[in-house]
């Protein structure tokens, strides 16, 4: 059974996203530990990409800062190996197809397994293209996390049927970033997912406040937050672990209150 399921055994899950190497890997390690200690159930670790087409300005900024700081895929694998000495919650990578492709799909997945990564999210690898890496991800037991969007319509059932790890429900149209309101009928998407799989699902894109996280976790299995956390890291830099920890505590309490 997928290790990722453990993230959904503590009530509703709270899932933070953190870009590796923003502003440096030493800070990222502290941020990850602070988030885990504060109750994060699973952490999405971003491997920066030069041209992240699914991201809004906040996460684009984190990608640029991380790459400017000299972070590379190899350094990130070493960093995860080090993290895994004490961080026990499930960890997944979030990056772009070219980062995996250029590293070599098999080499990438085998290093994921070695270092203790449980899954991978590739926003530019839709259902039709997942064969690009699915043989090697299966071989090394790395879950390929599928996304379902408000525009997926009749595709949602097809995607859910083949899902592994968890399903990432994209809350709204557009790119990542904080939104004041989410208007998509998430319940309807969740209903389709439940009819087709027992793989858990969490909602992301645009969530920043406890009441939004609570609402989204209420109708699914968890809430994912990226840009709001990246903003804290951008603001406090090396001092950000404490502030991220406090924020994660608040958000985990909110989703647990469902």
């Amino acid at each position: 059974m997928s290790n990722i399921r453990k993230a959904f055994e503590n009530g509703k899950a709270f899932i933070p996203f953190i870009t590796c190497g923003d502003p440096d890997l030493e800070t990222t390690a502290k941020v990850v530990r602070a988030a885990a200690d504060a109750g994060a159930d699973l952490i999405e670790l971003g491997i920066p990409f030069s041209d992240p087409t699914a991201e809004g300005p906040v996460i684009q900024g984190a990608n640029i800062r991380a790459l400017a700081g000299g972070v590379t895929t190899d350094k990130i694998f070493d960093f995860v190996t080090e993290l895994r000495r004490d961080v026990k919650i499930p960890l997944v990578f979030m990056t772009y197809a070219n980062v995996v492709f250029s590293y070599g799909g098999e080499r990438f997945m085998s290093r994921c397994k070695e270092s203790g990564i449980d899954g991978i999210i590739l926003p530019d690898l839709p259902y039709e293209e997942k064969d690009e890496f699915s043989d090697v991800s299966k071989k090394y037991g790395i879950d390929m996390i599928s996304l379902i969007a408000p525009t997926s319509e009749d595709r949602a059932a097809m995607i859910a049927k083949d899902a592994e790890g968890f399903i990432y429900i994209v809350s709204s149209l557009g790119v990542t970033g904080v939104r004041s309101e989410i208007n998509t009928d998430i319940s309807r998407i969740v209903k389709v997912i439940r009819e087709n799989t027992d793989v858990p699902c969490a909602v992301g894109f645009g969530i920043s406040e406890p009441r939004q996280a609570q609402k989204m976790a209420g109708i699914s299995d968890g809430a994912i937050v990226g840009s709001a956390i990246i903003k804290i890291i951008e603001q406090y830099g090396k001092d950000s672990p404490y502030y991220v920890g406090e924020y994660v505590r608040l958000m985990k309490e909110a989703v647990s209150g469902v």
Partner: protein
Amino acid sequence: MSQSKGRFGVHGGQYIPETLMNAINELEKAYNHYKDDPEFNRELTQLFNEYAGRPSLLYYAEKLTKELGGAKIYLKREDLNHTGSHKINNVLGQALLAKKMGKTRLIAETGAGQHGVATATAAALLGMECVVFMGEEDTKRQALNVYRMKLLGSEVIPVTTGTATLKDAVSEAMREWTKRISDTHYCLGSVMGPHPFPTIVRDFQAVISRESRQQILDKEGRLPDAVIACVGGGSNAIGSFYHYIPDENVRLIGCEAAGRGIDTFETAATVNTGKIGIFHGMKSYFCQDEYGQIAPVYSISAGLDYPGVGPEHAYLHDIGRAEYVPVTDDEAVNAFEYLSRVEGIIPAIESAHAVAYAMKLAPTMDKDKIIIITISGRGDKDCAAIARYRGEDIYE
């Protein structure tokens, strides 16, 4: 079992966010319906002939031929099209298709501004809203085209992310499309991006070789020995090559922007210096580092300043059907000035890359050989930049 569509050998595919998949599928379905629809084709042909000024001339450049002293040179004059480049061919097709699909708004990326101007033009003609994304760096290099787009009723959004050039304009247009899909068509300007764009854009641009093939048969009674076109994403090149692909005796030569040289980092020659990767919706060749980070590229030509190449070109390269040669800034600027002086035709700096290679190739060929160079656009837009390159500051 998943199924990958739109492959050219290993290249192509649909590497895009889930949010866009239904829009892309809807576009494919609509295109498959309308491409064989007699009414659609009648309307498009009418727009081509009555509005864009097609067919474009195939001009025998007699003076150029004599000066170079080798093969007979013909110029396929896409610069004479309305809006001044081949971009109008694709844009009229896509805008008409979008209108049939019930879309009311076009978005586009642009490098040199030629595709942006063409899209703004089609939007004005067909009564559609239009927003063009253009790298901030390019809005400076091509200020006149920014003004033209605004004059045509379009909004121009300067893109400041990344290198603030064509690649970033594409990324930003893709991001915009994921925000607003229901009323918006992304009018992609080259034979790139996710399927079905490389096929749609090729089919609309294939009018270039459909015409030139018939024109050269009428004038010479035989096919050319070589067809030469510049390649950024590769839309005028694929249009120039397409109907000659089965004719194996016709050499197909794509001229890439080498910038300051393919042995420097300041280059945009993707096939010559890049490696296979996945970006902007497609698998193809890209300029990138060992970890797959897309490289900042450089060319004097804003229209060729792109780190990738269309997947069909990548395939034609793999199977050896087409050749892709690097042409430097210096060579292109010399050709820009040379063609202006010798034939009284000022080519776009993009097209000047093709002219530059022909200047090397023609003298090595016998006088009974024939070359067709596609002049993809006119060079008015480049005069200020070329003057600057030569150290002269002129007011635009």
